[in-house]
């Protein structure tokens, strides 16, 4: 069943000089329910903008964005964002940050929030840190809070905008393994933006490779690696082949951009 359906989505931003800046141009993508789709592409190619369209923060200037066949009209509790910058409230504790989404939605009664929060604290492995403030946590732990906060509102779709980009390489690997473990439990539909080819392959059912054209799909690559996956999978021949293939696509892209700039 198609969960997210983006048809010919186009996004333009008004510019100070009165013109329009084309950030995403006729972007097509169908994501199945429960599917894990990663998006890779050069920076500035419109990845965050696409997530914002799905989240309902930005209205497409052309085409349409459908969730379960219905057009997106704004943010909703069926979708939750995880941010590269974590976007935690520094004055709130871990616990209180995780309940933020529930609080803002005014749906779950106070008494039930506590139980939900402790459930998700356990799920992301933050027991013992409930009363800590974000600045007392490492980057990896902060993003665990960000993920728990998103999961706590029980969305059907998890939108992740380079969630591990601010973390060091090793923490990144651990976090992506953790994310897969959680995803196997929760069975959300995930749209995951990343710069890292390894991460894109390791996590995905399908990888969307964007070109800088802007927001044009270069190729959509299915990943046939078996699940559940562990980090050793990165040595398998199929993984290596996919990595090399995507690397090639992005390198061509980079060269075209560099060449284009030199020529103009």
């Amino acid at each position: 069943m198609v969960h997210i359906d983006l048809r010919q989505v186009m996004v333009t931003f008004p510019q100070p000089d009165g013109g329009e800046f084309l950030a995403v141009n006729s972007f097509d993508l169908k994501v199945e329910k429960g599917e894990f789709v990663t998006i890779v592409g050069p920076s500035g190619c419109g990845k965050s903008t696409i997530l914002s369209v799905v989240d309902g923060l930005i209205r497409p200037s052309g085409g349409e964005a459908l969730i379960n066949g219905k057009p997106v009209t704004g943010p909703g509790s069926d979708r939750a964002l995880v941010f590269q910058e974590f976007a935690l409230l520094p004055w709130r504790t871990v616990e209180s940050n995780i309940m933020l989404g529930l609080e803002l939605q005014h749906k779950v009664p106070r008494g039930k929030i506590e139980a939900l929060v402790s459930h998700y604290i356990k799920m992301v492995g933050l027991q013992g840190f409930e009363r800590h403030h974000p600045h007392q946590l490492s980057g990896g732990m902060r993003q665990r809070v960000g993920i728990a906060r998103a999961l706590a509102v029980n969305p059907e779709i998890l939108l992740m905008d380079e969630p591990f980009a601010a973390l060091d390489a090793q923490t990144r690997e651990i976090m992506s393994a953790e994310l897969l473990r959680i995803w196997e439990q929760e069975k959300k539909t995930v749209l995951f933006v990343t710069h890292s080819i390894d991460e894109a392959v390791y996590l995905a059912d399908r990888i969307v490779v964007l070109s800088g054209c802007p927001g044009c799909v270069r190729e959509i690559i299915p990943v046939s690696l078996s699940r559940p996956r562990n980090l050793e999978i990165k040595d398998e021949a199929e993984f290596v082949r996919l990595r090399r293939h995507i690397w090639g696509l992005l390198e061509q892209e980079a060269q075209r951009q560099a060449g284009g700039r030199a020529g103009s």
Partner: protein
Amino acid sequence: MVTLAHLYRRFDAPFLGTLGLVAALCLWEIASRLKWADPILISSPTMVAVALKNWAVTGALWRDLGTSLWELIVAFGASAVVGIPLGVAMGWNRPAEYALDPFVWLLYSTPLVSFWPLFIIWLGIGVKAIIALAFLFSIVQIVINTMAGVRNIDPVLIRCARSFDARTIDLFFKFTLPGALLMIVAGLRLALGRALIGVVVGELFSANAGLGFHISYYGAKLRFGDVFASLFVIVVIGVATTQLIRLFEARLVSWKS
């Protein structure tokens, strides 16, 4: 003496600060006693101490202190009550900012003392005019800090709030206000100092009680020991109230340490 060296390293800033102060006081006393300059003009620490004692003994000190503190509290309180909502409105709402901005910068850049003749005509010589001047001194700082605090909220937090479909009231009370709180309190601290200046300046010009009045009264009589005694009390008030707010600030940022 390991322990002394330890103590010194731990408290070197207050220790050296006190040392400098004591040295200056000694130098002042010596200069006065040895008549390096006319003792009537430069006074001396012991003369100031005596003046302070007499001021307290007659009870006039408490009346002057009470008057000035009362003016300070009213002016500062009123400027907080008016200034914080104004600053919030300006930080929250662009049209409000554009409409009010000229007034804020006008008040910030003109010497506010020049409003004094107007205040005297509008409000009469005395407490009301003094409070009005101190109010003006104080409110500008509060408005500017509050506006900056509200405006400078991290855009990614706004994006987060919108993504959770936050109501406007939640956006304000759960994101904007707590995010701006530190800036607002810092503004209050600076404003309190400015309000105190306003009170003293107002009293210098026209009053029949208060610390500023004490200065101008004895200044005219060339009794500089009493003038310095008054300055001493003003400094004590300034430092004490500022430290009080600093303590409050430290509690507010407990999540940072």
